[in-house]
């Protein structure tokens, strides 16, 4: 094993650029998945099968197929249909969509965990449906599911390297580019491997603190 600290030093500027892109993709992807997941979860509660069946089938399909192929699909097929986005935008949307099918189940569990009494009280107070959701059910449901959503943020972090496959220069993309230019594979790959472990470990510690504060 020949480890060269010089190569690490050369890689570091690229690493910071890549980290920035990775975090960008992570934050935007999380926001999309949180919002879209809530939409799916609410649609699944519409009392007609004309809505629940299509939504159920689509989300099941998205959840059970590889994110990588979905990325390729969006990256190569959307331009054929006349929609051209940057690689990063496509990637963020793909990650958000993929993980929204997971977060929808988290929201569903959260909504189902709200005690029936809360629904009955809302009915007794003659609250309209909209108010029931926005001021009674959702605030209680979302509070419960924050830690579970956090787990998916960590899972998403570990899927961002896939964006490399559609030419996004995230941490992985920068590492690959550097390796191809300098023929040094060991250093950049190890640096980003350690970076992933550190970030996800810190995030999980943060989550545990959050969990203690929110779920009592």
């Amino acid at each position, binding site marked *: 094993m020949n480890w060269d600290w010089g190569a690490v030093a050369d890689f570091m500027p690229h690493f910071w650029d890549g980290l920035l892109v990775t975090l960008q993709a992570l934050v935007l992807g999380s926001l999309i998945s949180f919002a879209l997941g809530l939409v799916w979860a609410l649609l699944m509660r519409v009392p007609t099968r004309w809505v629940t069946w299509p939504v159920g089938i689509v989300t099941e399909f998205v959840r*059970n197929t*590889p994110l990588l192929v979905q990325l390729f699909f969006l990256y190569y097929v959307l331009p054929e*249909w006349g929609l051209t986005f940057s690689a990063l935008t496509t990637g963020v949307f793909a990650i958000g969509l993929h993980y929204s099918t997971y977060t929808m*189940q988290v929201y569903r569990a959260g909504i189902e965990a709200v005690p029936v009494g809360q629904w009955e009280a809302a009915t007794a107070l003659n609250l309209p449906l909209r108010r029931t959701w926005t001021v009674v059910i959702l605030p209680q449901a979302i509070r419960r599911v924050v830690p579970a959503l956090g787990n998916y943020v960590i899972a998403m972090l570990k*899927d961002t390297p896939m964006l490399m496959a559609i030419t996004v220069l995230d941490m992985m993309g920068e590492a690959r580019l550097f390796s191809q230019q300098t023929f040094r594979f060991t250093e950049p790959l190890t640096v980003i*491997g350690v970076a992933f472990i550190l970030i*996800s470990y810190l995030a999980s510690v943060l989550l545990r603190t959050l969990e203690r504060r929110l779920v009592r």
Partner: protein
Amino acid sequence: MTSGLWELVLRGVWVTIQLLFFSSLLAAAVSFVVGIARTHRLWIVRFLAGFYTEVFRGTSALVMIFWVFFVLPPAFGWQLVPMWAGTLALGLTYGAYGSEIVRGALTAVDPAQQEGGIALSFTPWQRMRLILLPQAVPEMIPPFSNLLIELLKGTALVSIMGMGDLAFSGNLVRLALQESAEIYTYLLLIYFVIAFLLTRMMRGLEKKLKAGVGKAPQKKVAAVRVPEGSGVR
């Protein structure tokens, strides 16, 4: 699409299935060894197993694959056949997730069962083999089924390394036809069908194992991954 291109896709399906089979075997072995080690009496064994889980769960599967393909060969002077390199990377990563499932199911067994084993002066290994595992394994099947689907989705990553799996052959077809909507739709459908078959298979297995301990299978399982920092609840 011509029949030649379909043949290419079918060969890709075969590689994906082979990779899925081998890496799930390795992942299952790793999850049981590491998961059981995390319930060991000696703290050093528990610590090492926990360290393994944190490291392999903390890093990304794709980074792991790159590492096995590019860093291991110069470091140790030997190179793995792509199939085994892919199996190793996927098996070790998903094994770390699986070890949490095994640990969770083992700790969920009623403590009275464990105490009963001690009272009857079973050795630790006998307790594990005759009391804990037979009750814990059926409970592991639903989360393992979800993990297997994750592993199937993970196999697509090896295509980035140029291994001729389903996703890779899909890219070749796209280049040949200069047209992407059709082939990628087929690709997604094929993956979905494989995932569907796997879920059915696992549900059958669960039914069989639960019948063995006199329980009915769980009704509906949500595909929620093993929580990251907090263990299995």
